[in-house]
């Protein structure tokens, strides 16, 4: 036995051994995809326009304040769409002053003048792209925190879609889909705002004091009055637009009970938030403070005295609601709203069924191919079968090393590897037969068979890899699992069908002076 062959044999043993180690026992070491394990698969779109609109409106409000301070009276200041706002009827004599005052907005906006002293501010394209990207990343991080707090093991949260504004959320083992969905998509925008008027039973009654107009720096929010023992009714409040503190100033939030022993959420503020909060509450003792969640006033307690860093949200919650609310408040607000595009639930029974039928199909496929190869190629068939089994072990081992999950289409890829993988051996064996028929002698025939076919195999595997690569690019989730299996199957097949198979042949031929070959 040549030294060369011994080294090659050792290399094969090491590789296959390492792969075996990565997959035994399979029940623990092979990662299963969602479609086999069961769970929830969600695709949502981050409405990044929301983030742009927020930026545009707040810039616009700043411009409005600046104009007021500089004593410039303009016709109107209004937002046109998420990326544009307009200032109209700037008096001609104050034009230069206006340009100077509004210069700050031009860091992120392009200014364009129109007829009648109007100016349109359009967000710079690179700023818009950046804001959109930030919104998606922030949404992803927020959802990650929420999902982790839910206690889901091995969740997948990934950005996808051609516009890069979609999030794929996979929650293995989760069965209460509705709750998971609610927690993920709740914006959880918490704002504490000073109440100027109200609460009043109608909008009209509320605005009587201000002649039916909403002052520019204020807004109307509605809420449901749920005093104990009375029928809940909708009321309206006039509040200051600028919040005293927001959810961003929160340090912690946890479920608690209010003075009537009803479920409530207690929160504490960080240093910055506590400073703002204590100043505002100190200056406004005896006034009402509205606690606004996602645009809805949940409660409007009276400020009894200066509060520094603690507070409570009450308002007819159930126990489950306060738990979920504290969870989402802790994780922070979403920068933009979300819409669901796709929802898939795979129950554990369905997954188990798929695993059973996948194993069944693999065994039957393997049995059929093994029988055929033994029948057709006799002893050389054993060589091909060893190569095939090594092929499958290396495929699974490689997937395990890169952490790729086995999905149902992945099982299909595995079975295809069984059927198509022996092709390389068939190609080589047929060539060896041809060479034998031409009376070339056993060793020479084997050598020529392998070396002649190697380039062909390189070509066939390359073309197959090209289509597998595009398949990977095309697919999401399960299809990627399929493409991954194909790619690893192809690469390991090239190794086993040439290197392994040839080494086995030479190992056998080196021991005896063969004049015939069972092929």
């Amino acid at each position, binding site marked *: 036995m040549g030294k060369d062959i011994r080294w090659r044999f050792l290399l094969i043993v090491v590789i296959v051994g390492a792969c075996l180690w990565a997959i035994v026992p399979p029940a623990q070491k092979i990662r299963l995809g969602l479609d086999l394990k069961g769970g929830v698969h969600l695709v949502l779109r981050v409405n990044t326009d929301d983030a742009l609109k927020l930026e545009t409106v707040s810039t616009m409000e700043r411009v409005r304040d600046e104009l007021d301070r500089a004593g410039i009276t303009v016709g109107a200041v209004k937002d046109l769409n998420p990326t544009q706002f307009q200032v109209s009827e700037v008096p001609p004599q104050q034009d230069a002053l206006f340009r100077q005052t509004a210069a700050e907005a031009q860091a992120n906006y392009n200014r364009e003048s129109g007829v009648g002293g109007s100016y349109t501010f359009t967000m710079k394209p690179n700023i818009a792209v950046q804001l959109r990207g930030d919104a998606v990343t922030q949404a992803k991080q927020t959802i990650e925190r929420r999902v982790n707090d839910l206690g889901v093991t091995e969740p997948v949260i990934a950005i996808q879609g051609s516009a890069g504004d979609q999030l794929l959320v996979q929650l293995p083992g989760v069965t209460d889909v509705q709750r998971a969905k609610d927690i993920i998509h709740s914006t959880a925008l918490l704002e504490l705002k000073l109440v100027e008027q109200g609460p009043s039973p109608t909008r009209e009654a509320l605005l009587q004091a201000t002649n039916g107009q909403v002052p520019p720096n204020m807004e109307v929010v509605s809420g449901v009055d749920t005093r104990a023992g009375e029928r809940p009714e909708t009321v309206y409040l006039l509040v200051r637009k600028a919040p005293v503190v927001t959810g961003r100033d929160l340090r912690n939030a946890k479920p608690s009970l209010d003075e009537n022993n009803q479920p409530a959420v207690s929160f504490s503020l960080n240093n910055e938030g506590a400073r703002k909060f204590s100043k505002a509450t100190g200056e406004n003792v005896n006034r009402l403070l509205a606690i606004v969640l996602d645009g809805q006033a949940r409660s409007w307690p009276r400020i009894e005295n200066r509060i520094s860093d603690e507070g409570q949200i009450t308002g007819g919650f159930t126990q489950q609601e306060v738990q979920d609310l504290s969870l989402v408040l802790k994780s922070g607000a979403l920068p933009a709203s979300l819409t669901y595009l796709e929802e898939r639930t795979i*129950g554990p029974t369905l997954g188990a069924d798929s695993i059973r039928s996948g194993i069944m199909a693999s065994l039957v*496929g393997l049995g059929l191919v093994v029988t055929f190869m033994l029948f057709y190629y006799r002893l050389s068939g054993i060589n091909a079968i060893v190569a095939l089994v090594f092929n499958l072990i290396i495929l699974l081992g490689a997937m395990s090393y890169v952490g790729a999950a086995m999905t149902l289409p992945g099982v299909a890829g595995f079975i295809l590897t069984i059927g198509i993988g022996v092709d390389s051996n068939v190609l080589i064996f047929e060539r060896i*037969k041809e060479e034998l028929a031409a009376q070339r002698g056993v060793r020479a025939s084997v050598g020529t068979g392998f070396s002649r076919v190697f380039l062909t195999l390189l070509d066939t595997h390359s073309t197959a890899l090209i289509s597998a690569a*595009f*398949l990977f690019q095309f697919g999401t989730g*399960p299809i990627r699992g399929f493409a991954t299996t194909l790619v690893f199957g192809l690469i390991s097949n090239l190794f086993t069908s040439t290197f392994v198979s040839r080494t086995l042949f030479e190992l056998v031929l080196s021991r005896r002076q063969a004049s015939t070959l069972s092929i």
Partner: protein
Amino acid sequence: MQIFKNPNYNFVGYRWHAIGLSTLVILAGLVTVWLKGLPLGVEFSGGSIVIVQFDQVPGIDRVRGAVGSAFPGGGQNIVVQSYGSPEQRQIMIRVPEVGEEQGTGLSQAADAVERSLAGSALGKFTVVGREVVGPVVGQDLTRKGIWATALSLLGILVYIALRFRLSFAVGAIVATIHDLLVMIAFLAFFRYDLSLNVVAAVLTIIGYSVNDTVVIFDRVRENLKGMRKDDISTIVNVAVNQTLGRTIITAGTALLSVIALFLFGGEVLRAFSFTMIVGIISGTYSTVFIAAAVVTFWRHKTARVPAGAPASVKAARAPQTARTKVKTARNPRVM
């Protein structure tokens, strides 16, 4: 053991019959798609699927009646069918709507199905799976699917043109497009839904079919050197015959594994394995008849131009391949 002892069939001679047969199948397929459309899976069309497992299966019609009452017009477009093997007692309900197009109301239709089943006396059941896809997803996928298919064809065309020559690349691509159309025809005949898995099967067949073709072309390239005086049709025909054993065996083992998948792989993979079965048969057939035929047409035309581009390509390649040949003859260990 050998399936064919020195086969010498005139495949190239039957090319017109083959082209006629293929055209017939493809045209019939296209007409079926034109008249009845291609049934789309929920990933492409959008819609809701609910799979429930009953303690005791109440009969498809009763389930249909219960679900239909929850939708306007009696839910005429709702599909109710048993799912998987009978002992699993599972029923699949597919509704073309989702509720709201997207957003929080996305699962309204699926919820309505579950409520209607719970509200009627059909016995105990559990929901084992749900799939709700908004229409936006389908449009996105269709675009991506077409791009993936077109780009992988292009990638293969370029690869073969570089490694072999343009006429071979064109032959391989024509054969592959042929397989694509045959698969679509059979999907239309047998009314399997075009799902993500089916697209995966189609893309796999693209790789597989070319694979098969490359093996024959490889032989043609080798024979071109030894049979310089022969007509291209003869050279191609000899190559097809030389590799015939391998072509049949490979298709056979691939078919064995895919048939196992079709029979035992479960409901989810049925359309996938059906497409694979059609694709493997068509891929083998097109390799032997269509790809080879295209090469002979192309080369017959270009052969009339003496000292043209193909000839110089051949000359440029010859020394390199000749060297490898000598090497392999002396030292059979080269890999």
